[in-house]
């Protein structure tokens, strides 16, 4: 049926579609190829061995690990409630969770500043206990959490919704309480979806730039994550540093895309 319709399309249109598709794919591949080809491996290694590069790598590793942990701890119960709960305002909560995906990161950073900054809503409270969040490593984590968590909650919500309810009920009739049923049945069955969402959320946090620079600044070793170091490298004329770190991020992105594909296939 589909094949018959496909052959019915005039060859001129098919050629135009093929050219358009090839242009877009080339447009995506070419810049990445140029980036990969820009530096010989020895200069990549040399650039990555500098203290500035190592500090950015370490900081990005640390902060994304923290923001991922927070995403899992806070996002998992929320995703389950959104998938299974029946309560007024569920659709509103559902939409709110998706908001950070479409809010511009710089706007998110400014908004976070208005809450956690010295003059922000929590400013007096944080000041009273001598805790500073804005322009510290903690602010980097908050920015990553804000932009990344929705990707996890969306995927986890879909994963939980796909778990057969009667399997959870069977667990209950066999004597397992709600928490043990969740841990032994629901989570294991949703694991591919949860892992896929976690990978996406982590990757989004790793690439986070706009919100971070607004709420955390660009202090080497404290708030200067990989994307910020790429930006500053270019700004200060250290193109080797910028492109070597960019290469690291591209390789991570390739791994993430492959991993998500594998996990999506297992979730289906």
């Amino acid at each position, binding site marked *: 049926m589909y094949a018959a319709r496909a052959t019915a399309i005039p060859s001129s249109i098919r050629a135009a579609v093929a050219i358009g598709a090839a242009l877009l794919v080339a447009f995506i591949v070419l810049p990445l190829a140029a980036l990969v080809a820009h530096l010989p491996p020895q200069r990549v290694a040399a650039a990555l061995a500098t203290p500035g590069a190592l500090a950015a790598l370490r900081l990005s590793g640390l902060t994304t690990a923290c923001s991922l942990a927070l995403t899992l701890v806070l996002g998992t119960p929320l995703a389950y409630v959104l998938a299974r709960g029946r309560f007024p305002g569920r659709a509103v909560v559902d939409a709110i969770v998706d908001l950070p995906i479409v809010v511009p990161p710089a706007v998110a950073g400014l908004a976070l500043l208005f809450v956690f900054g010295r003059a922000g809503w929590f400013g007096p409270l944080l000041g009273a206990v001598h805790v500073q969040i804005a322009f510290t490593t903690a602010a980097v984590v908050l920015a990553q959490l804000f932009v990344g968590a929705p990707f996890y909650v969306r995927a986890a919500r879909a994963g939980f919704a796909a778990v057969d309810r009667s*399997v959870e*009920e069977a667990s209950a009739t066999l004597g397992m309480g709600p928490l043990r049923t969740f841990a032994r049945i629901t989570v294991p069955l949703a694991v591919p979806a949860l892992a896929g969402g976690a990978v996406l959320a982590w990757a989004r946090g790793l690439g986070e730039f706009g919100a971070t620079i607004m709420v955390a600044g660009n202090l080497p070793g404290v708030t200067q994550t990989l994307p910020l170091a790429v930006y500053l490298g270019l700004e200060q004329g250290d193109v080797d540093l910028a492109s070597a770190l960019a290469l690291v991020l591209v390789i991570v992105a390739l791994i993430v895309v492959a991993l998500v594909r594998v996990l999506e296939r297992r979730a289906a």
Partner: protein
Amino acid sequence: MIELAIRRRLRSFTLDVAARFPAGVTVVAGPSGAGKTTLLRAIAGLDPPDTGRIVLDGEVLDDGRRHVPAFRREIAYVFQEYALFPHLDVAANVGYGLAARGVAPARRTALIADWLERLGIAPLAAARPGALSGGERQRVALARALAWSPRAVLLDEPFSALDDATRGGVRDAVRATLAGLDVPVLLVTHDEEDVAEFAAPVLRLAEGKENGAVHRVSVRTAP
């Protein structure tokens, strides 16, 4: 002994059942959509009735004020599509209720082996449910429901997911297994052949009217 008098509003009628189920098998019969599954789910604690009481061996499970959750009722439920745990092997499925009760591993292993043997599925112990035939899944579901000595057993259309060729043999096996139980066993079916084959007391959910509204009420018949 299960004693109940419950009422629950459904989309097109009100289910209104008052019945006592002593130890042994009772067949609950009636056409599709008669409220049979609703009755079982109420007894299991999965969907509480709107009003009424459910009492098991003198213990109140539901009476409007009190609602004992499903996981504390110790009532086994065999789901129509079995609802086996797809990520656990057959032995872990059968041992699940024992694990829930903290039965020691050695005793658990022995009980699992015993039930696998009884239902003729011992060679399947390490298989995942996805690799089993319909008849095999049925046996796993039954073993999982019975291995932990529940206080009552509910079976929802246990043969409807089977093809005609396997149904007869499975029915004989299930009947033989259930005959040995000393607790109330409710077997729900829409199939008159099941009713005839089990030769057990039958509770029929039949249509009645009350104040102009359609009610399904229970009518008990002797075997």
